């Protein structure tokens, strides 16, 4: 049975150190994405480039609920997920510029990055394809008999794909330890949720398959983390999948070439001013006297240096050798361990 929307008012128990960590990680994603947008404008990044600005609390909150060995898979709006699971900003940025030092040696690009080491399974360009793949990753852990959980992230647009519901059905049937994370940023490219479905919410669709879930305020990293912990505990206990519909907002266009005429500038501005997830934590840190302005400035400076370093690396890293055109088409041995 599906549970009701969480109405818990209890203050989450969080340490100053954790708060600072969330602040840092969210800011890292934002600054990284701003830099990526800048490099795109300069022609250093080509093709499609989908920025995560505004949605930072979703992935940072959920990663805070993950343990070593947990897996994650997402769509093409993937830079934030990679940074949040500990992938090196240099390798990510160099993949954006299509260079040898990138995570896929320049052969994947913005939409297709992977890290076997960090259990990050892409980076998928086909809307909703990552949903059954995520359930399959969870299937591999269940088969091996460990208690790992997979986070399968997808958007409100992907939530209308048939394969999502095929996956819900099998994930519940087989009790797969997968958290379906619907990052509802309100717009599937240029189509608002109101124009694509009459469902009042997306998580409730899981009830048709017997999957529990809830809606979460995705602009509040602590609420996301709390919901993530609940979902993960459900999966680890062998109770099957769980759905989190994390309501969030993307400040930038769908991709770099999106003129964003489907919403007003005021709407975006209002979200930025009133609901910004990073600003909220910043205020919490300051008013709670967990950090001083100077402390936060030091973090900002530190992040700026890391991001600039990643950009420099991404510019300096050479283009892949021409021989790379012909490598990695077939494996001669198992590409990843069982």
């Amino acid at each position, binding site marked *: 049975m599906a549970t009701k929307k969480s109405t818990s008012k209890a203050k989450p128990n969080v340490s100053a150190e954790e708060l600072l960590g969330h602040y840092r990680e969210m800011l890292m994603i934002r600054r990284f994405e701003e830099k990526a*947008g*800048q*490099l*795109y*404008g*300069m*022609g*250093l990044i*080509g093709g*499609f480039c989908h920025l995560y600005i505004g949605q930072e609390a979703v992935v940072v909150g959920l990663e805070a609920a993950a343990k070593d060995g947990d*897996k994650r*898979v997402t769509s093409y709006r993937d830079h934030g997920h990679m940074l949040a699971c500990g992938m090196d900003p240099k390798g990510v940025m160099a993949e954006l510029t299509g260079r040898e030092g990138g995570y*896929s*040696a320049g*052969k*994947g690009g913005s939409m*297709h*990055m*992977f*890290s*076997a080491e960090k259990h990050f*399974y*892409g*980076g*998928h360009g*086909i809307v909703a*394809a990552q949903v*059954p*793949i995520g359930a*399959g*990753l969870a*299937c*591999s*852990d269940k*088969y*091996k008999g460990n208690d790992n959980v997979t986070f399968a992230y997808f958007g409100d647009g992907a939530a209308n794909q048939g*394969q999502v519901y*095929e*996956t819900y*059905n*099998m994930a519940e*049937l087989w009790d797969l330890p997968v958290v379906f994370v619907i990052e509802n940023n309100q717009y599937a490219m240029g189509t608002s949720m109101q124009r694509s479905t009459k469902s009042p919410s997306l998580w409730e669709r899981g009830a048709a398959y017997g999957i529990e879930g809830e809606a979460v305020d995705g602009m509040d990293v602590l609420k996301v983390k709390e919901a993530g912990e609940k979902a993960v505990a459900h999966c680890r206990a062998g109770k099957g999948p769980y759905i989190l519909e994390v309501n969030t907002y993307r400040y930038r266009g769908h991709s770099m*070439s999106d*003129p964003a005429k489907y919403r007003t*500038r005021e709407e975006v501005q209002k979200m930025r001013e009133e609901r910004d997830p990073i600003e909220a934590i910043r205020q919490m840190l300051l008013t709670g006297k967990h950090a001083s302005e100077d402390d936060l400035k030091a973090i900002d400076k530190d992040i700026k240096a890391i991001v600039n370093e990643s950009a420099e690396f991404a*510019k300096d890293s050479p*283009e892949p050798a*021409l*021989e790379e055109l*012909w490598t*990695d*088409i*077939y*494996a*001669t*041995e*198992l*590409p*990843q361990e*069982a």
Partner: protein
Amino acid sequence: MATEILMPALSPTMEEGTLAKWMVKEGDTVSSGDIIAEIETDKATMEFEAVDEGIMGKILIAEGTEGVKVNTAIAILVEEGEDADATPTKASAPVPQDKAQSSEDSPAADMKHPTPAQPKSDATPDWPEGTKMRTATVREALNEAMAEEMTRDETVFLMGEEVAEYQGAYKISQGLLDKFGSKRVIDTPITEHGFTGIAVGAAFGGLRPIVEFMTFNFAMQAIDHIINSAAKTLYMSGGQMGAPMVFRGANGAAARVGAQHSQDYAAWYMQVPGLKVVMPYSAADAKGLLKTAIRDPNPVIFLENEILYGRSFEMPDVDDFTIPFGKAKIERSGDDVTIVSFGIGMQYALAAAEKLAKDGINAEVINLRTLRPVDLPTVLESVRKTNRCVTVEEGWPQGSVGSWLASEIMQQAFDYLDAPVITCTGKDVPMPYAANLEKLALVTTDEVIEAVKKVTYR
């Protein structure tokens, strides 16, 4: 420190644009995220946001200017108290576009796939002479191959519709549930797109799934995962991860099952880099190649045939019999013409060769067995000997396996050809239901004989 603001690229294809409107004027303070200009690209009018903070020192390109090249300085941003005419630092000098493009023009980009050249065909037999033989059906051979490999490797499991409790829609998985249990022989709901995606995810997670499609016609619901998720991931991940798995099931026409259940997908899958494609004919092919497929660290398409399932063949009675990929089998040797086929096409090829022998035409019949990798050296060597070639398959003519073979033969053995290659294929029509029309739609032995007579000028 003064910074140049450069004309941005705002779409994947933008090279220049119109600076439609400045939203700020000289002297205005701007902060990161402020809209400073509207720029018209080839697609749309875009708002251009400031990246850095500062004061608009100088506008270099007036609004309304058309054809402003990407990366041209359009304004100078200064810090408070700074002279607008101060020499700006190149914010972050972009790499010249021509540098990025130069490698595309270099001759090395034309280079051929550096797979080790196989100048000679490998004619070693699949089993040594004198090996003890037994009779088995293709069905039994496939079943044995799966059972042996599942015994050998704990990570191998079978999933598909009716594979477990029903014992397989075509009884290929008979007995496997009893032997390996429901954890490793998994009945799925009728949901090809979904369970194929789950199987790909399980392969990414370190397992070795065998996905049975009741027939390959239904795999069209899942082809996105086969190609985009399974075949391309090794490349897209720079070799970090891939999908070691087998997609198997009945392919091509059965008998009287109509247009939606009768398609041959050999040519479709053969086109995809990252996939390996197998189409066995005999029981020995089926067993030896399926065992190799299950062990292969790549996604393998294994195209079976319902009509062949019940057919019996002689098979070596040995432990752990495997056949390597990319090794064709000369099923019959001859000097007058080369007939190349695979899968059920072999029955027409062999029957034609039999009849032709009575007319004094000795055909060499090659069973390709794997279409990716394909054993071209064996084909070319044979064509250089016979100077004539006919290809045989049940699939459609346009973009067929035969068309590709003919093209390769023309490019690599043109001087040896005494006649154009003839491709015998199914007809260019959806499969009809009526018995007489269905027979007409498939390739026939008579058509193969006629083609051979044509290329041998008889």
